[in-house]
């Protein structure tokens, strides 16, 4: 049998198979039962089952052909953000008459916190206008990026981070089905390094299986070493030892070659600061400077130049204090 990505292979088919999130799953089951489906907002961190739950709900509601029969459509707001998508694609789908016994379609707007505010206002009108025809499920990491009027039109479901116990147990089941040997410590390490993101955990497990059928911690570290080569840390260390040119080269590599978002580099630096072997006072200083860099970048300044300026300051903060 040919292999498909395990995240797809083990994607829950029905609400019953959704992991954890018990309260939410129960409410969604009730909703399917009664056919009284409101517009919904699924909020929560990455890889906790938001999109998966939406698909499972649709399958429970419409049956296996939920997508092929056109009752359910998925639009990814981060790839197709903006007014144009909402106006054209979403509106077209929303206004077309639904058939079948359920009587309305479902539009899944994934990563909808990426929609511009204009697009969200356009969406809000569409939600009202075509509510007899279709329901929206908005999926987002942060509800504060969704405008109030939309939030007030939706039933909000807050997905929580999946507990370590549940995730490692689930990973263990997958390992068994895939005839792998995986130690508990290995699975816990996967969970820790993936920040509890189940999609990442499963991808890591599958990647690990390409290295060895017997997975221990060292295999996991090897996989994660491939994935995050610790470039940010390397850059910070180079900067700290006064090798500014080399540090900038690493930065440019990440920004221009690997296409890493400046946002993600900022996040990693922020986490790294607290692990650095410098005094607490110096950590505070760096936090403050990083905050300023963050602000400038968000206002449109260049990621490379602002981060470079920060790198140039690191050896000073090392010595000072």
């Amino acid at each position, binding site marked *: 049998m040919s292999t498909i990505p395990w*995240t797809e292979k083990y994607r829950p088919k029905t609400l019953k198979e959704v992991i954890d999130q018990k309260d939410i799953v129960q409410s969604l089951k009730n909703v399917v039962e009664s056919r009284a489906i409101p517009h919904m907002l699924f909020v929560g961190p990455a890889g906790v089952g938001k999109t998966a739950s939406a698909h499972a709900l649709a399958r429970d509601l419409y049956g296996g052909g939920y997508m092929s029969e056109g009752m359910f459509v*998925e639009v990814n707001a981060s790839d197709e953000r903006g007014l144009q998508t909402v106006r054209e694609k979403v509106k077209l789908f929303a206004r077309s008459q639904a058939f079948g016994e359920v009587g309305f379609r479902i539009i899944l707007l994934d990563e909808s916190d990426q929609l511009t505010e204009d697009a969200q206002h356009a969406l809000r009108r569409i939600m009202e206008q075509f509510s007899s025809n279709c329901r929206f499920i908005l999926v987002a990491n942060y509800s504060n990026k969704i405008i109030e009027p939309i939030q007030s039109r939706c039933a909000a479901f807050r997905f929580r981070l999946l507990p370590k116990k549940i995730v490692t147990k689930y990973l263990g089941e997958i390992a068994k089905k895939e005839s792998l040997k995986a130690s508990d410590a290995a699975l816990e390490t996967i969970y820790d390094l993936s920040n509890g993101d189940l999609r990442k955990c499963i991808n890591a497990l599958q990647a690990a299986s390409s290295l060895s059928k017997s997975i221990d911690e060292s295999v996991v570290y090897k*996989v994660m070493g491939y994935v995050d080569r610790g470039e940010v840390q390397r850059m910070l260390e180079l900067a700290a030892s006064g090798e500014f*040119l080399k540090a900038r080269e690493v930065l440019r590599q990440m920004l221009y070659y690997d296409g890493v978002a400046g946002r993600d580099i900022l996040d990693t630096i922020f986490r790294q600061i607290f692990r650095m072997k410098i005094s607490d006072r110096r950590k505070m200083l760096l936090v403050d400077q990083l905050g300023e860099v963050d602000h400038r970048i968000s206002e449109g300044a260049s990621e490379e130049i602002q981060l470079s300026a920060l790198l140039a*300051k690191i050896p000073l903060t090392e010595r000072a204090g």
Partner: protein
Amino acid sequence: MSAIWTEKYRPSKVKDVVGNKTAVEQFVKYMESWEKGKPSKKSALLYGQPGIGKTTTAIAYAGEHGYDLVEVNASDFRNAQRIKDIVGTGSQQSTLVGTRRRMILVDEVDGIAGREDAGGVAALSKAISETKVPIILVANDPWNKRLATLRQKSKTIPFRKVHHASLISYLRRICSAEGVNVSQDALQDIARDSSGDLRSAINDLQTVCEGRKNVGEEDLGALGYRDRPESVFDALNSVFHGEGLDEARRSAGKVDKDLKTFFAWIVDNAPRQLTRPRDLASAMEALARADVYMSRIYPNQRWVNLRYAVPLMTGGVALSRSETSRRFVRFMYPEKFAFMARARSHRTKKREVASKIASKSHCSSYVASKDILPFLRVVFQNDEKMARDLAEFFEFVKSDVEFLAK
């Protein structure tokens, strides 16, 4: 003072117009269509930057082919009435006179469009509709919104910069006619400084030749009224080794690169020039502040921010040096440019792969490239069989697979 050279050496024959062969040919054809009685459009719009022969071409043609030239300068127009008086009347009389043909030349058409009063454009437009003689319009910027109607009614003929070589050879002809000896270097400089504007080049030439028989590059100092471009290396020298704020600041205005490019040169070279960590940190912060101001320009075209950015990116760096170093470190072509070129194809490929992954994984390309693609890399580098299966699932082509296995 003797005659102004730009007038003295203005060509009287169309074939003597310097450069712009295509434009001149188009213009001649257009005029011939009038002479055959069937012009496709009743007016022609000659456009392009100043001093490249638009008006000269029209005047030369009129002279050679026996036209009475009614020349009006649109900058003088105040209102519709004046246009009617001059253009309207002139354009109707041709047939009455009969013996000599008439051409109306309206110079600096953008001059009327620039005025608040749009009546002038409307009157001109009306005159074109009714004219019985060719009306030639000359403009610098044909895309001015208020010229839209005139543009539609006219045969448009673009004039381009005069090539460097043609410029120099024409300047040299003037020199020999005037009996002055001007060095090749000086001619090069004058030509380069004119950026294709023949008229300004001739004016400059006349200025430096005034009262001299021999002119070298050093005599160009007389041309104080136009800043001479400076090589990027000289400008960087002012920034990194200059006397202070004023010298550094001026370098940005003189350098023969646009400001963004010059900025990239400074940013790239700063860490090589400033080796003391404290100096470098201070310079990089000044550059970061300059970058902030640069970024404030674009959303709303607030060019005022430029005046804050320039002193920071130049003087801010100049003042960061805590001790005068006489050690010379060569300035380098920005590594960033080479880096970007190499990175471009890599990133394009990565985007393609990420978008294929996204379409099969219920997520965005961003999430795919961040949270899925790196794991696929591990698989593609370590397990050929699984890689083959996954490649089939994601519908990867050979180059995608190579990208992931690399």
